[in-house]
């Protein structure tokens, strides 16, 4: 979506994540040529659905991809990250369930109502973070530590000790597949959120302002931008993303568990931003990179499980691969590579011009 901005820069900016995903795909194909095969089968509710590792990877990465988009914006504007998104997502889930339970039958109308309530509540919580960061200038990690620690307790207060179940075809359709459409619904949600953000980017100056604030806040102010508002805005956008992700996750499970809903997603989201080639120090950003990062993380997880790595060890292996990707994309390695490339080119050019002289 940003291809036009830096002509010719797209590929080189996304090179590391693209290479990473290429290697993962290749690795899996060698390991198991049928790894990515897709088949049509019938699920429990009698719908024809596409199944296979590829579909499952893209499907399960949905929440991560959506939150990573919001996280990218917060990172760019504030040079910091919101570590409370998982906990706030749990609050979202609880609110969603509570609204549906409270309004009796689950109908399209109550689901929409529940979703809107989720958006409102979630945005309120992320704005709380936003105000601490933008207005009181507290380090984002510290500011969001508050909700990181108590968010899940708040979720618990909302739903009580029960683990409420949501039984309804509408919920199933939202969390899994809509009858007649063989592709999981969450995938469409990612596309929808992506398109909405794209629309927002096209019709406003959010990108220019956010990057400008992230790079040089003082100069931005002298050019008439309000850095406080822009930072707050990034948290509001993140809030909407978390609300959507929380609702998807709740529908997927058909229940809300305040302890496990979107657990650990904040770390994966931050990683997705970094793997996507974005600087965690703020400034220039690329949403497509973060989305790609989300799928890389999910593909990695799925691959490890497919290799029957014990769940306890998965995290360690994941960490190793992620270190490799992040280091490969680091400025040190990048400049080293490009100066090596330059020298190769110039050795020839230099030799020629010395002959001439």
């Amino acid at each position: 979506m940003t291809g036009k901005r830096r002509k010719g820069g797209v590929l080189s900016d996304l090179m590391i994540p693209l290479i990473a995903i290429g290697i993962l795909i290749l690795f899996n194909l060698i390991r198991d040529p049928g790894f990515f095969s897709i088949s049509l089968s019938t699920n429990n509710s009698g719908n024809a659905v596409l199944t296979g590792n590829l579909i499952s990877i893209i499907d399960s990465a949905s929440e991560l991809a959506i939150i990573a988009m919001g996280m990218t914006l917060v990172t760019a504007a504030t040079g910091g990250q919101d570590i409370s998104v998982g906990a706030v997502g749990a609050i979202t889930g609880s609110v969603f369930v509570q609204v549906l339970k409270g309004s009796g039958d689950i109908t399209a109308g109550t689901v929409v109502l529940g979703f809107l309530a989720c958006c409102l509540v979630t945005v309120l919580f992320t704005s709380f973070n936003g105000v601490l960061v933008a207005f009181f200038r507290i380090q984002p990690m510290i500011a969001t530590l508050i909700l990181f620690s108590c968010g899940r307790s708040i979720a618990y207060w909302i739903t009580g000790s029960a683990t409420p179940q949501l039984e309804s075809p509408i919920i199933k359709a939202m969390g899994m597949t809509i009858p007649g459409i063989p592709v999981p619904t969450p995938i469409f949600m990612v596309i929808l959120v992506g398109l909405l953000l794209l629309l927002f980017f096209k019709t406003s100056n959010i990108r220019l302002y956010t990057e400008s604030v992230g790079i040089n806040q003082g100069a931005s102010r002298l050019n008439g931008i309000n850095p406080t508002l822009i930072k707050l805005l990034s948290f509001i956008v993140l809030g909407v993303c978390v609300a959507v992700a929380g609702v998807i996750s709740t529908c997927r499970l058909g229940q809300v568990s305040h302890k496990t809903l979107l657990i650990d997603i904040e770390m994966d989201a931050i990683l997705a931003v970094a793997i996507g080639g974005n600087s965690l120090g703020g400034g220039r950003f690329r949403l497509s990179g973060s989305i790609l990062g989300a799928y890389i993380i999910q593909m990695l997880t799925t691959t490890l499980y497919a290799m029957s790595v014990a769940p306890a060890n998965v995290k360690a292996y994941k960490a190793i691969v992620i270190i490799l990707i992040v280091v490969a994309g680091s400025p040190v390695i990048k400049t080293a590579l490009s100066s090596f490339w330059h020298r190769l080119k110039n050795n020839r050019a230099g030799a020629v011009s010395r002959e001439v002289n």
Partner: protein
Amino acid sequence: MQDGIVLTMRGIYKSFPGVRALQNVDFTLRKGEIHALMGENGAGKSTLIKVLTGVYEKDAGEIRVEGQDGPADIRSPQDAQNIGISTVYQEITLCPNLSVAENMFIGRDKGVGVRWKDMEKKAGDLLKSLGIPARPKQQLSSCSIAVQQMVAIARAVDADCKVLILDEPTSSLDDKEVEMLFGLMRDLKSRGVGIIFVTHFLEQVYAVSDRITVLRNGELVGEFEVQSLPQVELVSAMMGHALAELSDLDKQGSSDALSGEAFYEASGLSSAEARPFDFRIAKGEVNGFTGLLGSGRSESVRAIFAADHVTGGHVKVNGKPVNISKPVQAMKAGIGYLPEDRKRDGIIADLSVRENIILALQVMKGFFHPLSRKEEEAFADEYIKTLEIKTASQETPIKSLSGGNQQKVILARWLLTHPQYLILDEPTRGIDVGTKTEIQRLVLKLAEEGMSVTFISSEIEEMLRTCSRLIVMRDRKIVGELTGDQLNQDTVMKTIAGGEQA
């Protein structure tokens, strides 16, 4: 290596994507000489220096330093430091939130375990011996740019160096401070230090230098003895052609405007940094704030634009009372402001030249009215052409432009908003002689077309050429206003220094 030579650079090449910054450049520095490195904006001066100090890796060429066998292999500023090459870069590269003493010594001590007490004492002694008005414990950001610049120099000369490099060290200093710095340079010279001096001030070159090396478009024009190269020839060596007559600019229109209708009026305007003052500018008038550094001239214009927190006062624009408490309100009222500190307040380093040019205009158009890519490119193109900004492309990040060209981009940004009142704080800082007169001409042309301009410059001569009214400040108060016949060097200096003599 020949006797009496401390440094030779031979056949230096350096390219950046899309730019050949240096092509086959030679440079020789002798012991105990002050050697000026001259050239237009983007000629490659800073690049040559960064190649020498290991900030950039050269593509080809050889560097030899006295006391080293064979070609020197300098891969980092630390390496350069270790073989006796100290540098003060064009852009201040100190840490604003550390103390003065810390800035002078950090990354300096090769040994371990410097004691704070010792460090502060040494810093204090050094500051005193150089006559720098700063306390060791003071936070650097609380010093004026001039003092910060001097601290950077103190940091560099502290080491026992053979080669001292000063890249435009005087651009933010006033005459007295420049004299002080020259004293320091001559002192180091007599101790045998070779000094490379980059500047755009011709008089300064003739005041201190022994030799001049001129670069043009990344190529060597030649090395000259200072006596054998009159100023006119130096300028044409730099530009490749003679400079159009530097004679008086016509500021008649602006003088006539003085008595006209006011565009902007303030009474009792004050900010967190500026004491209450009254100010008025007529349509088409060009005026200036002058005074020593720290006299409050920059702070006053910042108050007009609400760059600092405004604490009081009444403002009228076009005769109507307006509230200007945020920069954006000033912009909406038709005011533009080019800040003094380009790196801190001006450039958005990682954004492209195009984005930096359209930024202020874009903000004025509003959050939901983005310019189309076509419009942006057209605007950027227009100003790159008019101001002759040297850049590989519109998409180049502004941080990789030469200092003077960055300044032009910021100027373009404000010209593009077509303000009715433009405040320029040191607009020609770091700008080469040719372009400097172009900018002065431009200012007067804009005034002719009805724009009001406030101009601040450390060079009084430049202010005299452009302004029809000078507001003189001392100790953060307005102490005088000069117009007409009073606009001469003598009167201005006297008013700045104090009323006693008058």
